[in-house]
């Protein structure tokens, strides 16, 4: 799957959880999910579960530690997709 496609689907998943819609409008791979998009840290787990469902992958909880930016999520998902 192309990186751009994964990116778009990741952003679509994160959108309902993002409190900062202005940051969402200018989202890039470097955008920090918690600090910039203001996704509640307690809801990050729902975001990751949505990634699992959307892409048919399984994400270990230690992998979640590596997800800080949108780009991190894209890289993680692509690595799981093989």
């Amino acid at each position: 799957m192309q990186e751009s496609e994964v990116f778009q689907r990741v952003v679509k998943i994160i959108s309902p959880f993002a409190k900062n819609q202005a940051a969402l409008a200018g989202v890039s791979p470097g955008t920090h999910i918690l600090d910039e998009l203001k996704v509640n840290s307690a809801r990050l787990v729902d975001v990751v579960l949505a990634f699992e469902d959307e892409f048919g992958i399984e994400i270990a909880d230690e992998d979640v530690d590596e997800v800080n930016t949108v780009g991190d999520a894209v890289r993680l998902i692509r690595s799981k997709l093989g």
Partner: protein
Amino acid sequence: MAELSPRARLALGIQLAVGRLLAPLWVPLSAALMRGAMGWRVEGVEQTRAEYRRIRDASREPLLVCANHLTMVDSALVAWALGSPAWYLMHPAALPWNLPDRENFASTWWARAVVYVMKCLPIPRGGDRGEVSSVLARVGWLLRRGEAALVFPEGGRSRSGRVEQDSRTYGVGRILGEVPGCRVLCVYLRGERQASWSRMPARGDRFRARLALLEPKSVASGLRRSLDLSRQVLARLAALEEEHFRDRG
């Protein structure tokens, strides 16, 4: 969960030794403050303590204490309900480690020094995932060494005043997944005058504690497993809460 480096293990070992060395000072002082200065009492405290002793003596498997969370001193209250100062001095591993919020309890050097001595591992709630992971790894290491640890599965004080079963935190499940055979001691503790969450319990409040031993299992894997295990603990705490209010009438 991150593997502990030799340096991290050494640092924990030193903290453990310092805490034990100074325990004859801070353990009785903490209890005296709760009982004397604040006038708090735990009803049926001897039975509660006897049950904790029985549970600890019944198995050498790790024991994680999971409690409901309504005030900022819950960890001290739970520890006090589970053991007397004298017993803790003779059984220091039974006095649970705590994971206080770094922002609330370790923002100044003196606060950091106090919580360091008092078996605490400050955690950045909602902060850097790597740092949270590192603290959880240290808890796992301590549990495997026979130390008790106390965590609040809801991840913070309950804003509804009741156990929040739909909490999306999974730190407890993560610890349980990493410590094979770990048992969970669910503790529901609440003051009679504790209507909702607050900074401190009311002066002179009387507390009642309920305990339940749990060995959560899950057939799920990955993050879903951690969530599943955490939910089982929260469900048990919610059941204890129901019993608490039913008995109270």
